[in-house]
């Protein structure tokens, strides 16, 4: 366990960013999101949740797959280069890290998504324990401990100090590189801080959310419930929940005609959008109710079906905070609980 005074963090950031790109929560235009560090950046480690999840560091909202030229029936294809440089993600929360592990199950399963994998391989992730969880958090419901560290390096902010310790080889490397900035720290400080956090967590209203009615093999039980017909009604069919969600990973593949060439890119898509399943061969989810159901069934039933009971939700609570219609997964879970 090492520590550094908070006022020396800037030095640390400067040092890391000299060697590799550094991504951390940055405030810009009244909004806090993960962004690339530079001297002018307004770093906001104090903020619990970034507006968007850090998933776009690994699965960007939009990325080029290849560009293509075609003329007179001949085609040439220029694939997009993969991420080749190492980078550091600093201050990721545990729920978001857990979400990354969920994304891994999708993108790193065969056939591997090489674009995603290249970024994963090149990233060193420093997680930061949540000092002040919020009412919309429910990570505990998924067995995530926001006081405990995860990723390559675990970190805590306790009083005037920033503490960290390495969990993986990559983490060790990062700590070694920056060792000259740090001093040794007492493990006990961290333990008491963890206990404090866990106390707060116990008081948070949604942390005790019960998921016993969900998971593997619940398709038949949940799918035809009349509750869906009620629940979806306020849904605006926007994609806010899916875009702020750290685990949503649906995407679309599109062409952009850029003069002589065609750029093929993939971009986030949302199962909430009316045209998500609209394909040349037809559309199998024509109503918003079906699309709404799909999102929650996928997170709470289908995904666990295929992944040993792991839910595709980590309780980060962004959808609770951000849904324009104040709808969210918690309301869905609770509505079914009430019914049961």
């Amino acid at each position: 366990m090492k520590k550094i005074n908070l006022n020396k963090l800037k030095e640390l950031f400067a040092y890391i960013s000299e060697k590799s790109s550094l991504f951390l929560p940055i405030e810009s235009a009244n909004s806090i999101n993960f962004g690339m560090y530079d001297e002018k950046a307004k770093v906001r480690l104090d903020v619990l949740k970034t507006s968007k999840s850090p998933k776009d560091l690994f699965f960007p909202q939009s990325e080029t797959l290849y560009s293509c030229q075609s003329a007179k029936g001949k085609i040439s294809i220029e694939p997009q280069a993969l991420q080749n440089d190492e980078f550091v993600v600093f201050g990721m929360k545990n729920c978001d890290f857990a979400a990354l592990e969920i994304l891994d199950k999708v993108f790193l399963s065969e056939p591997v998504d090489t674009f995603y994998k290249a970024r994963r391989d090149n990233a060193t992730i420093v997680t930061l324990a949540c000092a002040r969880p919020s009412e919309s958090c429910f990570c505990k419901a998924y067995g995530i401990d926001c006081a405990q560290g995860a990723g390559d390096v675990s970190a805590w902010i306790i009083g005037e100090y920033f503490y960290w310790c390495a969990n993986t080889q990559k983490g060790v490397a990062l700590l070694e590189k920056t060792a000259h900035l740090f001093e040794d720290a007492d493990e006990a400080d961290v333990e008491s801080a963890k206990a404090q956090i866990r106390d707060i967590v116990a008081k948070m209203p949604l942390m005790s959310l019960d998921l016993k009615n969900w998971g593997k093999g619940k398709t038949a039980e949940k799918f035809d419930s009349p509750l869906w017909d009620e629940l979806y009604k306020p849904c605006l069919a926007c994609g806010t929940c899916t875009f702020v969600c750290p685990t949503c990973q649906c995407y679309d593949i599109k062409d952009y005609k850029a003069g002589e060439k065609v750029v093929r890119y993939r971009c986030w898509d949302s199962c909430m959008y009316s045209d998500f399943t609209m394909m040349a061969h037809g559309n199998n989810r024509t109503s918003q109710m079906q699309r709404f159901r799909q999102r929650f069934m996928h997170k709470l039933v289908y995904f666990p079906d295929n992944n040993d009971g792991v839910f595709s939700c980590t309780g980060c609570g962004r959808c609770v905070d951000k849904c324009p219609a104040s709808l969210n997964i918690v309301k869905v879970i609770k509505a079914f609980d009430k019914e049961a």
Partner: protein
Amino acid sequence: MQRIGVFVCHCGSNIAATVDVKRVALAMLSENGVVFADDYQYMCSESGQLKIAQAVKEHNLTGLVICSCSPRMHEATFRKAAEKAGINPYMVEIANIREQCSWIHKDIEQATQKAIILARAAVAKVNLNSPLIAGKSPVKKRALVIGGGIAGIQTALDIADAGFEVDIVEKTPSIGGKMSQLDKTFPTLDCSACILTPKMVDCAAHEKITIFTYSEVENVSGFVGNFTVDIKKKARYVDSAKCTGCGLCQEKCPSKKALSEFNCGLSNRSAIYTPFAQAVPNVPVIDPLQCIKLKTGKCGLCEKVCAANAIDYTQKDEIITREYGAIVVATGFDVINLDNYDEYAYSQSKDVITSLELERIMNAAGPTKGHLERMSDGKAPKNIVFVQCVGSRCADNKGKSYCSKICCMYTAKHAMLIRDKYPDVNVSVFYIDVRTPGKNFDEFYRRAVEEYGVNYIKGQVGKVTPEPDGSLTVHGVDLIDGRQVKISADMVVLAAAIEPNASVRQLATQLTASIDTNNFLTEAHPKLRPVESPTAGVFLSGVCQGPKDIPETVSQAGAAAAKVIGLLAKNELTTNPCTAHSDELLCNGCSACANVCPYGAISYQDKEVNDHGIRETRRIAMVNTALCQGCGACTVTCPSGAMDLNGFSNKQIIAEVDAICR
């Protein structure tokens, strides 16, 4: 995927001198969809068109791009050529590389590059063209002539003589118009009534002509070949079918204070009146503002004296709806209001009159029975001053910028007639220029000066001052001598400008015909299509299009008639297929498009649709393609993009933009 053939025209050296046509053709070969490209001396020639036909056959082409002169020049030619070759005519696009390229650029490299881009844009568009089929609409074989002056009468007669039905709608109680108010006509000095009256009678007697006098156009809908017009027949209070035209009612009518419109307000008329003796129809009308019976309920003298029982105080305005294939506007002119010219004392002295008023004074049926008298005291004038260009050829906003065209000649006529009849009267004419371009016009003017001793003064009148003794002092400048002139006159005649009849503005809106800043109706082309309005099926006759004299009016009337006859002779018309259409799955039914449609072509229907499996009844916009003229206003107003325009679709224009910016 289209199979496009590109043809680059040399236009002799017009294009080929500045544009490397071979390079343009070569460059097009690497464009998407292009399977054939060639250049040729004159694409519009017969052999050029043959080349197209051959290429279509050989290469199985589905679309054509012609790089040539402006589409305004030869688009129709190439569309016809395409059709002959078996391709839909709307699969042809023109890249304008002459007017918009070779003729304005000198640098060969630059011009060639631009030609390539223009051709590329045309290719990009054709790739998205789809065959369009022009619709057919039947032609209603009847014409409407709005205005019953000499223009309207002549047009109606010519159309009717060709065997088509014609309706004349005339606002006043009789046809005849301004010409009926004239005394003599220049340059032959024949009596206006003598030549006009027979035509009026012909009109009335013609079995193909229906005259609606005392009537106005209330509403126009429809389109070329199929106009529907509501005509308001104002209540006449006299049953035209019964009236024998004996005139007794007018004699007996006790209300005689109304000013006679026909005599320019220089005499009175009764409340029940026919405007003039030769009126057609010879059926009086009751002026409801003057009639004692209609105003107070008492009197009823006319009803009592009418042996034919034709008086009917209960008559109401009546709307008659008729259908027409063509409409001719012949609304004529008015003399301008002289309020802006009070320096000429028109409002202050009864002896300052307009030329039209002089016509009435000179006329045997006029207020003075044809004697030249001052309107103030009935004395014979000894010195008369004519002032030219009152309100015409104005540089400022006070009057009209244009030349009224007829004043020079009628003033010469007036001067001559006065000097002929009253040799002791001195006649002076203040003029800016004397314009006499017409057959026997200059000879006529010279006779006035040389034979009749009319005193022409080149110069302007600054002011006319009424003197206490009843005379008028005319203050002017003689521009040749450069001196101030002061003439004492006992009558001043103003050659007031003429302007289109005030009703034309509203009428133009109803007809969606355009008017210029002076309210003259616009021609479809100022030189080549002078009697057609830009709105198909609407034609122009007489002064409503621009100032002209009687012979010009009559010839234009005949020309308009010829155009109408040409139209009515067809059994059906092909409609422009470049019309708007609404995608029923995208339409919100919000009415925005209908709000901007200038033709009322969009209506709404509750329709059941199947939107990817969702069946529901929706309010959906429907375009009447017969009414739609293809302006595209609706397409931009429509937020969802449901409205699109054939031939200029969103995607086509975007493809052109892309091709240009590439």
